[in-house]
C-alpha cells in the first residue's frame, strides 16, 4: 500500500478554476500480478472534447521511459513541467497506489475523464489502460483496466 498526499501539489489548470471550491479526492489504483517489473503509470485528465487537461500523478522516475506512456506522451510532448512535483516511484505488480489530492469541483460532471496509461519493461505498452468519467455518482465505484490495472477508483 502506497499512500501519497498530494494536496495543493497541482499547479495545473485543474485546480485553477477555483481553489476554494476544491475537495480532497483519493485515487486508488491496484495492479494485477502480471509477472513483470514495476509499472510506470501516468494518471491524467482530458476534457469533454478529449483534449488533454492536466496530469494528476506520474508513477515512475526515469524520463527516458515516459515515451512508453504513449497517449500521455503524445498529449504532453513528454514535458517535464507537467509532472513537476507530482512524480513518485513506479508501482510493483500486485501493489496498490493511493493518491490524495484536491480536485476542483468544476471538474466533476462536466465531461472530464480520468485516464491511466501504463507501461512495463519488456511487456506491451498499455496507453489508455483505464478511462473513467469524473462524476460525483462515479465516486466509490471501481473499474478494471485493460491489462495491468486490477481496479481503479476515486473516493471523495
Amino acid at each position, binding site marked *: 500500500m502506497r499512500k501519497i498526499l498530494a494536496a495543493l501539489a497541482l499547479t495545473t489548470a485543474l485546480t485553477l478554476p477555483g481553489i476554494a471550491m476544491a475537495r480532497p479526492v483519493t485515487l486508488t489504483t491496484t495492479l494485477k500480478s502480471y509477472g*513483470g*517489473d514495476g509499472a510506470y503509470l501516468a494518471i491524467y485528465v482530458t476534457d469533454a472534447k478529449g483534449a488533454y487537461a492536466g496530469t494528476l500523478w506520474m508513477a515512475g522516475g*526515469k524520463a*527516458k521511459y515516459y515515451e512508453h506512456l504513449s497517449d500521455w506522451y503524445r498529449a504532453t510532448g513528454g514535458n517535464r513541467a507537467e509532472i513537476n512535483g507530482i512524480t513518485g516511484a513506479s508501482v510493483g505488480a500486485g501493489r496498490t497506489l493511493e493518491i490524495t489530492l484536491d480536485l476542483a469541483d468544476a471538474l466533476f460532471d462536466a465531461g472530464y475523464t480520468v485516464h491511466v496509461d501504463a507501461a512495463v519493461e519488456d511487456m*506491451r*505498452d498499455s496507453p489508455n489502460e483505464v478511462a473513467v468519467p469524473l462524476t460525483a455518482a462515479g465516486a466509490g465505484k471501481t473499474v478494471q483496466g*485493460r491489462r495491468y490495472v486490477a481496479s481503479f477508483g476515486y473516493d471523495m
Partner: protein
Amino acid sequence: MIRALHRWPALVAMALVSLLALSGAALSVFPAAERLSAPQSGDTISVAELATRIQAAYPGVEQIKRAPSGRITAYWFDNGTPGSAVVDPATGAGVAAADPDPIERWLTNLHRSLFLDDAGRLAAAAGAAAMLVLSLSGIVLVARRAGGWRRWFSPLRGPMPGRIHVELARGAVLGLLLSSATALWMTASTFGFLPDQSSGPSLPGATSETIGAPLAEMPLLVSTPVVSLRELSFPYPDDKTDVFTLKTDAGTGYIDQGTGATLAWSELSGWQVASETIYMLHTGQGAALLGLVLGLMALAVPAMGATGAVIWLTGRRGRPRISGNAYPSRAETVILVGSEGGSTWGFAATLHGALTRAGQQVHVAPMSAFDPARTPAARRYLVLAATYGDGDAPASAKGFLGRLAALSAAPAAPLAVLGFGDRGFPAFCAYAEAVEAAARAKRWPLLLPLDTVDRQSPQEFARWGRALGAALGIDLELDHQPVRPGTSSLTLVSRRDHGHEVQAPTAILRFALPRASLLARLLGRGFARFEAGDLLGIVPEGSTVPRFYSLASGSRDGFVEIVVRKHVGGLCSSALMALEPGDMVAAFLRRNQAFHAGTDRTPLILVGAGTGIGPLAGFIRANEVRRPVHLFFGMRHRDSDFLYREELQAWAADGRLARLNTASSRGERPRYVQDALASEQLQVIRAIRDGARVMVCGGREMAAGVADAMARLLEPHGLSPAMLRAQGRYVEDVY
C-alpha cells in the same frame, strides 16, 4: 602506481564485479536462445505484408513489435481481453507465448541493480567502473611484465597463479573493456545524463478523420522491410483522430488511418543511434554471437579475482618483516633491495639474518631510498636487484640509477650486485647489469663481480653467499627458503650403480612414493602430484641448506626417482650414495614449472649429459602420446655410465623415443654432446621448424657449450637460442 591502481579496486570490488560478471555471463545465453528459437522473416517481406497477415489472424491487433533477435510479437484486444503471442511472420499466426522469461527478468534485475533500484544501479555502475580501471591498468601491467607492448602475447613463465591470471586476462580483457565501458554508458543513459532521449515527431495537427485505409496500401509500411521494424502501433478503434505509429531502426513516423498517407517522420538522432548500438553491444540483443563471446570472457572475472588474490597474498607473505634492522647511521653493511613482487625481500631478509648473526650491523632498505649520506658508517653496499620486464627497474628500485648518477662521487665502500631473474626471458637480470654498469662508470669499487640467481634458486644464492663470505673473510651460509617446506620420509627401493670405472660414481635411486594425505591429494600438494623436471629437495644431516635434484619420474609412475653423482666431499651426494634399499631419507618437493615437458604433441629436443639425463628420461617415460622426441645424451664411456641404457632401448622400440644420439667423452672417438648436436643439424633444424622445444639439463659448462653449438646451428636460419628462449622454446635446468 599502476599496480596500486590495479590492486585496490580489485580487492574492494572483487565480490561485486564477480557477481556482475557471472550474472552477465548467464544473461548472455538468452539472446542466442531467442535468436535460435524465433521464427525469422525473409529479407524481402515488408511491414505492410506482415501487418496484413497478422491482422487477418488477429483482427483486434493493437501493436506489433520486432525484437533485435527477429522475434515478432503481436498484441491484440479481443472481446475485452488482451492477448499476445510470438508470431510466425510467414503466416501471421501465433506460435508461442509472449510472456517474458521470469529467470531472465530476475537475472537482469540482479545484474543491473542488485534488486536495489537506483542505489543498486549506481553500485553496479561503480562495479563496471572498477572493471574498466582494472582492465586498463591490467593491460599496462601485462605489457610491463612481458617486457614491452610488442611482446604482449609472449609466453609466460613463473608461478601458476600469476600465469593463469595473465593468460585469462589476455584472452578476456577486450571483452571486459567493452562490457564495462558500455555498462557505464547505459547507466548514464538510464539516469538521463545523455541527450539520447527519443523525441519523435510532433503529432500532426490535423488528420483526415476517416478510417479504413488498407494496410497493404500505406506507402510507409510498404517501403519498410520487416528487418528494420521496431514496433507498429495501431490507432484506437473508434478514435478517428488517432494514427498509426511506426518505429524503425531509422526513426519514427505517423500514418493517417483514413488515407494511409505519412503524416510525419523524424529520424533517430546520432545520440540515439549510438545508445542503441551500445545497448546491442552490451546485451547481445541483435548480436547474439558477440553476446556469447562476451559472456564467456566475463566468466574469467571470478577466476582472475581468485588468482589475483592469491598473487597479492603470496606477495604480502613473501615480504618478511626485517627484524633487528640496524639504523642506517650505524650500519656497516647496507643491503639495497630492488623487488617487484616481493620475493627479493625474502632473500634480503635471509642475507640480513646471516650477516647479523656474523656480528655485523646490517641495514636493509629499498634501492629507491639509496642515499650514501645517510649511511656514513657503511663499509660495503650489497644490491639485490630483480628485473622488471625488458630490463626495467623493479618497483622498489625506481629512481636508483638517477640517484647514483646525481652523486658527485660514488661511495668509497665497495659494492656487490646480485641480480635475480628468470633465464626464460631475454632480458635476464638486465636491470642488475645496468646497475653494475652504472656503478663501474662512476668508478664505484666492486667487492664482487656481478652474479645472478635464476628463478629464485636457493643454491645459486647460497653459492653467491659463500663468495661474499670469502670476500669478507667470514663463513657465510645463506639458507634461503621462502616457505620452509615440510619433509616426507622416502624409502629407497632400488639403486643402479654406474660410472665407477670412469671415476664418476653415479646411481639411479628409486624411492617408494610416500603416502599423501587426502587434503594433499585434493590440492595436488607435495608428493601427491609432481612431474619429471620438478625438484626433490634433500637436507643432508649437518647442514641447513637443502640440495635439489631433478626428478626423473612423475607421480603417475608410482615412484620417486633421481640420478645422483658422488662429489668428492659432497655432504648430500655422499649420504645419498651410501643409501641401501630400505633406508630412509627426509625430502620435500619443489615445483619447477619452467622445466616441465608438457603433454602437447610438439616435438622435443632433449639435451643432457651425465646426471642431466634424469629429468629427460622422465619426460620420455611419460611420453604416452608418442610426440617426436630426439635425445642427445653425453656420457664418459658407453660401457660405464650409459644411464638408462635398457630403458632407452625399450622406449625407442615402443615409439616414446624417436631418435637417440650419444656422445662419449672417453674411448676411441671422444665427443661431447654438442658435437653430436652439430652432426645432427639437419634433424635439429627440421624439428625446430616444426615448433620443437629444446630442453637442456646438466652442468653449467655443458649448457654453455650446447647454447654455443645451437647458436651456430641456428644462425644461418635467422634464429638464435635467445629468440627461442623468449618464446619459451629453449629452457635449461642447470646446476
